[in-house]
């Protein structure tokens, strides 16, 4: 007798990912897709793809998808959710898209407590355009637009989005996770599930920040990139739940 021990989730299409080898976008895609399938939300979901490495995510998520302008995904999601309150609406955004050009849109979507789920992939760099400095780039890190390392006296300290958005009264659930080993991947999935469950329960704005690698942009091997998250990123961007309005209910 044969038993199925693993199969690809129906939440993903068969289109091959366009991500670089070693990049953790693929893992995050799979987690989101699995959660949509497991919560039986896939067939009524509308995903919003942003601009950046995940610009093509409309090819990968196996549900209705809308491609948005750079940074505007939360506004687009607002338009969808307000006119279709019973559908599951999520955005999938990178750190350049959300923390820089889309800062206003994400802040106000949280502020209005739009009942949407935001998957925020933070790899501390602009990957798609070739490794430029992002607002999330760590101090001292060399990128193509901070060739001498990020100088915080000129370029500011990295923005901590989860911390910032958790101060907004409208946000319901915010957690920072990563996907650098099996344990953290399982935790990330639990967090993503919690966020979509919150939307299902009409609780309001939820966001999961996922610390992700960009080994190509960082100029390191995939393995070193995983280590870099552990050694450099997590100390500045501590993992954990930053907002859980339902915790004591």
């Amino acid at each position: 007798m044969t038993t199925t021990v693993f199969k690809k989730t129906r939440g993903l299409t068969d289109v091959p990912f366009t991500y670089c080898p070693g990049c953790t976008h693929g893992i995050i895609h799979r987690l989101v897709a699995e959660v949509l399938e497991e919560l039986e939300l896939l067939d009524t979901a509308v995903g919003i793809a942003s601009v950046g490495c995940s610009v093509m995510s409309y090819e990968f998520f196996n549900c209705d998808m809308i491609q948005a302008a750079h940074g505007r995904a939360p506004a687009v999601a607002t338009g969808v959710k307000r006119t279709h309150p019973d559908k599951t609406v999520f955005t999938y955004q990178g750190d350049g898209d959300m923390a820089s050009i889309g800062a206003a849109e994400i802040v106000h979507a949280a502020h209005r407590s739009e009942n949407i789920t935001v998957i925020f992939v933070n790899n501390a760099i602009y990957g798609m355009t070739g490794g430029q400095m992002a607002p999330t780039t760590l101090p001292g890190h060399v990128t193509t637009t901070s060739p001498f390392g990020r100088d915080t006296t000129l370029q500011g300290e990295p923005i901590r989005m989860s911390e910032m958005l958790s101060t907004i009264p409208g946000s319901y659930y915010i957690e920072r996770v990563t996907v650098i080993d099996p344990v953290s991947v399982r935790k990330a999935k639990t967090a993503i599930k919690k966020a979509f469950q919150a939307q299902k329960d009409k609780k309001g704005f939820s966001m999961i920040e996922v610390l992700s690698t960009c080994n190509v942009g960082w100029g390191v091997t995939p393995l070193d990139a995983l280590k870099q998250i552990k050694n450099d990123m997590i100390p500045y961007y501590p993992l954990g739940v930053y907002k859980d309005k339902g915790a004591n209910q």
Partner: protein
Amino acid sequence: MAKQLMKGNEAIAKAAIVAGCRAYFGYPITPQNELCEYMAKYMRSSGGVFVQAESEVAAINMVYGAAASGALSMTSSSSPGIALKQEGISYCAGAELPALIVSVSRGGPGLGGILPSQGDYNQATRGGGNGDYHVPVFAPASIQEAASLVRKGLIVAAKYRNPVMVLADGVIGQMMEPVELDPNPIDIEAFPWAADGNSGVRPRNIVNSLHLDVDDLENHNKHLQAKYRAIEENETMWEEYKMDDAEYMFVAYGTPSRITKSAVDELRSEGVKVGLLRPISLWPFPYEVIHRFSKKMKFIFVAELSSGQMLVDVKLAVGYDTPVHFYGRMGGNIFEPLELVAEFKKHQEVLGQ
């Protein structure tokens, strides 16, 4: 519906709701605030959605989202706000989404002023968004026409899957006139392409403006251009006033066209055979009819509340055979009929006619 005395901004809002618009996203800016306020008051009770967005940029992107998921939606703003919406308008055109954008324009550049102006003709008809796209632009000259063109705009937007703009000057936004609204919602079939979260019962839908493959993008553009040619063919609108025996032609649109009509009447009373050609659609522009009339004219007189923006389109239509004269005011100043008459006569003398 019975005749009502309504402000242009409110008539535009009400006409949109009555026609079936069910989602409005806006941001305050003078002189279109009453439109936004009317929507805030009445959209929800009409079963629709109202959101005051954090910016004009966000508002047009909310329209993009609502439209992408199949809702007949709109936004409104004024000149600097319309500038901010250009990104989203380009995306709507690229992704082929129906949407209505109402622009109640004011003076510029920059913050400019808040009084009536037509300095946004180029902004509306040429747009500031990227790429090879067009937005049909309808310019009302009365409150009644503003209401009708809002309805028409929604129909055209839905029919061609394209954003449509109603361009009103500040007078149209602020003025009250009697208006009778068509009480019937417009007849629109459901949008089978909408990404409305129904991939469980049909193949999944994708709304997108990205085409990385060169041939794919060229073909997409060819498809868009074919659509624009159809819009030019079917949706060009203009009014002819006393043009039958005219030897001189005024060209004016919006509020100035009304003042120009008075100038025409005044000149006619003095025996001058003059008429008015009023473009109602600014894109598509009535090039052909203006070209046809121009051959019979001694000269053509373009009057705008700008330094001469529509003028360029009139010259394109006319070519080199007939002189084109321009008179414009700016800053919120509006010419009077007798001002136009005087300018007309002065130009007659200059040309020795």
